Protein backbone atom coordinates (compact mmCIF):
# COMPACT_ATOMS: atom_id res chain seq x y z
CA UNK A 1 0.00 0.00 0.00
CA UNK A 2 1.38 3.41 -0.97
CA UNK A 3 1.40 6.06 1.76
CA UNK A 4 0.80 9.73 1.06
CA UNK A 5 4.07 11.64 1.38
CA UNK A 6 4.15 14.29 4.07
CA UNK A 7 4.87 17.94 3.33
CA UNK A 8 8.29 17.59 4.94
CA UNK A 9 9.21 14.66 2.66
CA UNK A 10 8.06 16.55 -0.41
CA UNK A 11 9.84 19.74 0.63
CA UNK A 12 13.07 17.81 1.16
CA UNK A 13 12.80 16.25 -2.29
CA UNK A 14 11.93 19.61 -3.83
CA UNK A 15 14.95 21.18 -2.13
CA UNK A 16 17.05 18.51 -3.84
CA UNK A 17 15.67 19.80 -7.13
CA UNK A 18 12.89 17.28 -7.74
CA UNK A 19 10.18 19.27 -9.47
CA UNK A 20 7.70 16.35 -9.33
CA UNK A 21 7.67 16.60 -5.53
CA UNK A 22 6.96 20.31 -5.73
CA UNK A 23 4.18 19.60 -8.21
CA UNK A 24 2.46 17.46 -5.53
CA UNK A 25 2.74 20.38 -3.09
CA UNK A 26 1.23 22.69 -5.68
CA UNK A 27 -1.72 20.32 -6.13
CA UNK A 28 -2.13 20.13 -2.38
CA UNK A 29 -2.16 23.86 -1.66
CA UNK A 30 -3.26 25.60 -4.87
CA UNK A 31 -6.91 25.96 -3.79
CA UNK A 32 -5.97 27.42 -0.38
CA UNK A 33 -3.54 29.88 -1.93
CA UNK A 34 -6.14 30.80 -4.53
CA UNK A 35 -8.72 31.48 -1.80
CA UNK A 36 -6.26 33.80 -0.10
CA UNK A 37 -5.72 35.64 -3.36
CA UNK A 38 -9.48 35.91 -3.88
CA UNK A 39 -9.80 37.49 -0.45
CA UNK A 40 -7.45 40.25 -1.50
CA UNK A 41 -8.15 40.68 -5.20
CA UNK A 42 -11.82 39.59 -5.59
CA UNK A 43 -11.21 38.59 -9.20
CA UNK A 44 -10.80 35.00 -10.42
CA UNK A 45 -8.29 35.68 -13.23
CA UNK A 46 -6.11 37.97 -11.11
CA UNK A 47 -6.23 35.50 -8.22
CA UNK A 48 -5.19 32.66 -10.51
CA UNK A 49 -2.28 34.65 -11.94
CA UNK A 50 -1.15 35.59 -8.45
CA UNK A 51 -1.41 31.96 -7.29
CA UNK A 52 0.97 31.05 -10.10
CA UNK A 53 3.39 33.82 -9.08
CA UNK A 54 3.27 32.71 -5.44
CA UNK A 55 4.21 29.12 -6.23
CA UNK A 56 7.04 30.20 -8.52
CA UNK A 57 8.30 32.51 -5.77
CA UNK A 58 8.02 29.64 -3.25
CA UNK A 59 10.03 27.37 -5.52
CA UNK A 60 12.74 29.99 -5.93
CA UNK A 61 12.85 30.64 -2.19
CA UNK A 62 12.66 26.99 -1.17
CA UNK A 63 16.36 26.96 -0.27
CA UNK A 64 15.66 29.52 2.47
CA UNK A 65 12.87 27.43 4.00
CA UNK A 66 14.46 26.22 7.24
CA UNK A 67 11.51 24.11 8.48
CA UNK A 68 11.11 26.08 11.68
CA UNK A 69 7.47 26.53 10.71
CA UNK A 70 5.23 24.19 8.73
CA UNK A 71 5.50 24.43 4.95
CA UNK A 72 1.88 25.59 4.76
CA UNK A 73 2.55 28.41 7.25
CA UNK A 74 5.57 29.54 5.22
CA UNK A 75 3.58 29.33 1.97
CA UNK A 76 0.64 31.30 3.39
CA UNK A 77 3.06 33.96 4.65
CA UNK A 78 4.40 34.37 1.12
CA UNK A 79 0.82 34.40 -0.19
CA UNK A 80 -0.46 37.19 2.05
CA UNK A 81 2.63 39.32 1.48
CA UNK A 82 2.47 38.90 -2.29
CA UNK A 83 -1.27 39.56 -2.26
CA UNK A 84 -0.79 42.77 -0.26
CA UNK A 85 1.85 43.93 -2.75
CA UNK A 86 -0.47 43.12 -5.62
CA UNK A 87 -3.37 45.08 -4.10
CA UNK A 88 -1.02 48.06 -3.69
CA UNK A 89 -0.01 47.79 -7.34
CA UNK A 90 -3.66 47.50 -8.37
CA UNK A 91 -4.52 50.61 -6.35
CA UNK A 92 -1.78 52.47 -8.14
CA UNK A 93 -3.01 51.21 -11.50
CA UNK A 94 -6.58 52.25 -10.68
CA UNK A 95 -5.30 55.63 -9.55
CA UNK A 96 -3.41 56.12 -12.80
CA UNK A 97 -6.38 54.81 -14.80
CA UNK A 98 -4.57 51.77 -16.24
CA UNK A 99 -6.79 49.25 -14.53
CA UNK A 100 -10.24 49.16 -16.06
CA UNK A 101 -11.80 46.63 -13.78
CA UNK A 102 -14.63 44.57 -15.16
CA UNK A 103 -17.06 43.47 -12.50
CA UNK A 104 -17.88 39.80 -12.73
CA UNK A 105 -21.52 38.89 -12.46
CA UNK A 106 -22.91 35.42 -12.26
CA UNK A 107 -26.49 36.62 -12.13
CA UNK A 108 -27.17 37.57 -15.71
CA UNK A 109 -30.57 35.88 -15.66
CA UNK A 110 -31.87 37.82 -12.71
CA UNK A 111 -33.65 41.09 -13.25
CA UNK A 112 -31.50 44.15 -13.82
CA UNK A 113 -32.53 45.96 -10.64
CA UNK A 114 -31.68 43.02 -8.42
CA UNK A 115 -28.41 42.58 -10.27
CA UNK A 116 -27.50 46.23 -9.85
CA UNK A 117 -28.29 46.15 -6.13
CA UNK A 118 -26.19 43.03 -5.68
CA UNK A 119 -23.35 44.55 -7.61
CA UNK A 120 -23.51 47.70 -5.44
CA UNK A 121 -23.47 45.61 -2.27
CA UNK A 122 -20.46 43.68 -3.52
CA UNK A 123 -18.65 46.91 -4.29
CA UNK A 124 -19.46 48.24 -0.84
CA UNK A 125 -18.08 45.10 0.80
CA UNK A 126 -14.95 45.14 -1.38
CA UNK A 127 -14.36 48.77 -0.49
CA UNK A 128 -14.85 48.06 3.19
CA UNK A 129 -12.39 45.13 3.12
CA UNK A 130 -9.87 47.23 1.23
CA UNK A 131 -10.05 49.86 3.97
CA UNK A 132 -8.86 47.46 6.64
CA UNK A 133 -5.33 47.90 7.90
CA UNK A 134 -2.78 45.54 6.33
CA UNK A 135 -2.53 43.22 9.34
CA UNK A 136 -6.28 43.25 9.91
CA UNK A 137 -6.85 42.34 6.28
CA UNK A 138 -4.31 39.51 6.43
CA UNK A 139 -5.91 38.10 9.58
CA UNK A 140 -9.43 38.47 8.18
CA UNK A 141 -8.60 36.66 4.93
CA UNK A 142 -6.69 33.86 6.62
CA UNK A 143 -9.43 33.32 9.18
CA UNK A 144 -12.54 33.66 7.04
CA UNK A 145 -11.41 32.75 3.52
CA UNK A 146 -8.97 30.02 4.40
CA UNK A 147 -10.72 28.96 7.58
CA UNK A 148 -7.43 28.67 9.45
CA UNK A 149 -7.60 28.35 13.22
CA UNK A 150 -6.55 31.26 15.42
CA UNK A 151 -3.29 29.47 16.20
CA UNK A 152 -2.55 28.92 12.52
CA UNK A 153 -3.31 32.55 11.66
CA UNK A 154 -1.09 33.58 14.56
CA UNK A 155 1.74 31.42 13.19
CA UNK A 156 1.45 32.92 9.73
CA UNK A 157 1.42 36.46 11.08
CA UNK A 158 4.05 35.68 13.73
CA UNK A 159 1.84 36.95 16.53
CA UNK A 160 0.37 35.47 19.68
CA UNK A 161 -3.07 33.81 19.34
CA UNK A 162 -4.50 36.36 21.76
CA UNK A 163 -3.25 39.30 19.69
CA UNK A 164 -4.57 37.60 16.56
CA UNK A 165 -7.99 37.16 18.11
CA UNK A 166 -8.06 40.81 19.00
CA UNK A 167 -6.92 41.74 15.47
CA UNK A 168 -9.75 39.75 13.90
CA UNK A 169 -12.27 41.26 16.33
CA UNK A 170 -11.11 44.78 15.43
CA UNK A 171 -11.28 43.93 11.73
CA UNK A 172 -14.87 42.73 12.14
CA UNK A 173 -15.83 45.84 14.14
CA UNK A 174 -14.30 48.09 11.52
CA UNK A 175 -16.13 46.27 8.74
CA UNK A 176 -19.42 46.58 10.64
CA UNK A 177 -18.82 50.30 10.98
CA UNK A 178 -17.91 50.75 7.33
CA UNK A 179 -20.86 48.68 6.08
CA UNK A 180 -23.39 50.49 8.27
CA UNK A 181 -22.65 53.85 6.66
Amino acid at each position, binding site marked *: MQTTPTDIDLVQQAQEGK*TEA*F*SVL*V*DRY*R*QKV*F*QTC*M*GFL*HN*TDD*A*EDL*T*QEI*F*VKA*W*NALESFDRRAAFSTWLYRISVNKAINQTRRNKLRTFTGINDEVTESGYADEDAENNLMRSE*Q*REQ*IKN*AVSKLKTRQKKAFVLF*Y*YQELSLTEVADVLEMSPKATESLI*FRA*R*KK*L*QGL*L*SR
Partner: protein
Amino acid sequence: MTCKEFNNQLALLQQPGEVPREMEVHMSNCVSCMEAFEKTKLLFDFVAEEKAKKISPFVTTRIMAQIESAEKPGKVMVRPVLASVFSLVVLLMGFFSASLFTSSEPSSLADTSEVIATDYFFSDNPGSQLEDIWLNTYSYE
Protein backbone atom coordinates in the same frame (compact mmCIF):
# COMPACT_ATOMS: atom_id res chain seq x y z
CA MET B 1 -28.67 44.43 25.88
CA THR B 2 -27.33 47.76 24.65
CA CYS B 3 -26.45 48.54 21.01
CA LYS B 4 -22.75 48.56 21.93
CA GLU B 5 -23.02 45.12 23.47
CA PHE B 6 -24.96 43.91 20.45
CA ASN B 7 -22.25 45.15 18.07
CA ASN B 8 -19.51 43.52 20.13
CA GLN B 9 -21.43 40.24 20.12
CA LEU B 10 -21.99 40.56 16.38
CA ALA B 11 -18.27 40.99 15.76
CA LEU B 12 -17.60 37.78 17.67
CA LEU B 13 -20.12 35.68 15.71
CA GLN B 14 -18.47 33.04 13.55
CA GLN B 15 -21.61 32.42 11.51
CA PRO B 16 -24.58 34.80 11.35
CA GLY B 17 -26.92 31.81 11.57
CA GLU B 18 -25.94 31.22 15.18
CA VAL B 19 -27.60 34.25 16.80
CA PRO B 20 -28.13 34.09 20.56
CA ARG B 21 -31.65 34.71 21.86
CA GLU B 22 -30.58 37.95 23.54
CA MET B 23 -29.40 39.40 20.26
CA GLU B 24 -32.58 38.37 18.47
CA VAL B 25 -34.66 40.19 21.07
CA HIS B 26 -32.53 43.32 20.76
CA MET B 27 -32.69 43.25 16.96
CA SER B 28 -36.45 43.06 16.94
CA ASN B 29 -36.56 46.39 18.82
CA CYS B 30 -33.60 48.17 17.17
CA VAL B 31 -33.62 49.03 13.48
CA SER B 32 -29.96 50.07 13.27
CA CYS B 33 -28.77 46.85 14.92
CA MET B 34 -31.02 44.83 12.63
CA GLU B 35 -29.44 46.64 9.70
CA ALA B 36 -25.94 45.94 11.04
CA PHE B 37 -26.87 42.27 11.33
CA GLU B 38 -28.18 42.18 7.75
CA LYS B 39 -24.95 43.78 6.51
CA THR B 40 -22.91 41.20 8.38
CA LYS B 41 -24.96 38.46 6.75
CA LEU B 42 -24.18 40.02 3.36
CA LEU B 43 -20.50 40.07 4.25
CA PHE B 44 -20.56 36.36 5.08
CA ASP B 45 -22.47 35.58 1.87
CA PHE B 46 -19.88 37.53 -0.09
CA VAL B 47 -17.01 35.63 1.55
CA ALA B 48 -18.74 32.28 1.03
CA GLU B 49 -19.33 33.08 -2.64
CA GLU B 50 -15.71 34.03 -3.27
CA LYS B 51 -14.41 31.11 -1.24
CA ALA B 52 -16.48 28.67 -3.30
CA LYS B 53 -14.71 29.60 -6.52
CA LYS B 54 -12.38 26.89 -7.76
CA ILE B 55 -8.99 27.39 -9.28
CA SER B 56 -8.35 25.90 -12.71
CA PRO B 57 -6.75 22.44 -12.40
CA PHE B 58 -4.38 23.42 -15.22
CA VAL B 59 -2.67 25.95 -13.01
CA THR B 60 -0.30 23.24 -11.75
CA THR B 61 0.84 22.55 -15.32
CA ARG B 62 1.37 26.27 -15.90
CA ILE B 63 3.35 26.66 -12.68
CA MET B 64 5.53 23.64 -13.38
CA ALA B 65 6.17 24.78 -16.95
CA GLN B 66 7.28 28.18 -15.66
CA ILE B 67 9.52 26.60 -13.03
CA GLU B 68 11.06 24.13 -15.49
CA SER B 69 11.71 26.79 -18.10
CA ALA B 70 13.45 28.91 -15.47
CA GLU B 71 15.30 25.83 -14.23
CA LYS B 72 17.74 25.93 -17.17
CA PRO B 73 19.29 29.32 -16.58
CA GLY B 74 22.82 27.83 -16.66
CA LYS B 75 22.47 26.59 -20.20
CA VAL B 76 20.61 29.64 -21.33
CA MET B 77 22.94 32.11 -19.64
CA VAL B 78 26.11 30.53 -21.10
CA ARG B 79 25.06 31.35 -24.62
CA PRO B 80 25.01 35.14 -24.33
CA VAL B 81 28.32 35.02 -22.45
CA LEU B 82 29.92 32.86 -25.12
CA ALA B 83 28.47 35.05 -27.82
CA SER B 84 29.97 38.17 -26.18
CA VAL B 85 33.38 36.53 -25.75
CA PHE B 86 33.33 35.27 -29.31
CA SER B 87 32.34 38.71 -30.61
CA LEU B 88 35.19 40.26 -28.64
CA VAL B 89 37.69 37.74 -30.03
CA VAL B 90 36.50 38.38 -33.58
CA LEU B 91 36.72 42.13 -32.96
CA LEU B 92 40.27 41.84 -31.61
CA MET B 93 41.28 39.61 -34.50
CA GLY B 94 39.79 42.09 -36.89
CA PHE B 95 41.63 44.89 -35.17
CA PHE B 96 45.01 43.11 -35.29
CA SER B 97 44.63 41.93 -38.86
CA ALA B 98 43.68 45.45 -39.86
CA SER B 99 46.74 46.81 -38.10
CA LEU B 100 48.84 44.21 -39.94
CA PHE B 101 47.71 45.55 -43.30
CA THR B 102 47.91 49.17 -42.28
CA SER B 103 51.30 49.00 -40.56
CA SER B 104 53.99 51.65 -41.14
CA GLU B 105 55.77 49.41 -43.66
CA PRO B 106 52.88 48.12 -45.66
CA SER B 107 54.65 47.05 -48.80
CA SER B 108 57.77 45.49 -47.28
CA LEU B 109 56.61 41.94 -47.85
CA ALA B 110 55.38 42.63 -51.34
CA ASP B 111 58.62 44.42 -52.17
CA THR B 112 60.70 41.50 -50.96
CA SER B 113 58.72 39.06 -53.11
CA GLU B 114 59.10 41.36 -56.05
CA VAL B 115 62.90 41.57 -55.59
CA ILE B 116 63.19 37.79 -55.36
CA ALA B 117 61.05 37.31 -58.47
CA THR B 118 63.00 39.92 -60.40
CA ASP B 119 66.35 38.38 -59.39
CA TYR B 120 65.09 34.98 -60.39
CA PHE B 121 63.82 35.88 -63.82
CA PHE B 122 66.80 38.05 -64.71
CA SER B 123 69.41 35.61 -63.52
CA ASP B 124 71.45 33.62 -66.07
CA ASN B 125 69.78 30.28 -65.66
CA PRO B 126 66.51 30.58 -63.75
CA GLY B 127 65.35 27.06 -64.57
CA SER B 128 68.38 25.35 -62.99
CA GLN B 129 68.01 27.41 -59.83
CA LEU B 130 64.44 26.25 -59.54
CA GLU B 131 65.49 22.65 -60.07
CA ASP B 132 68.16 23.01 -57.39
CA ILE B 133 65.55 24.22 -54.94
CA TRP B 134 63.23 21.33 -55.75
CA LEU B 135 66.01 18.76 -55.55
CA ASN B 136 67.31 20.10 -52.28
CA THR B 137 63.83 20.30 -50.81
CA TYR B 138 63.13 16.75 -51.88
CA SER B 139 66.47 15.41 -50.52
CA TYR B 140 65.91 17.17 -47.18
CA GLU B 141 62.56 15.48 -46.89
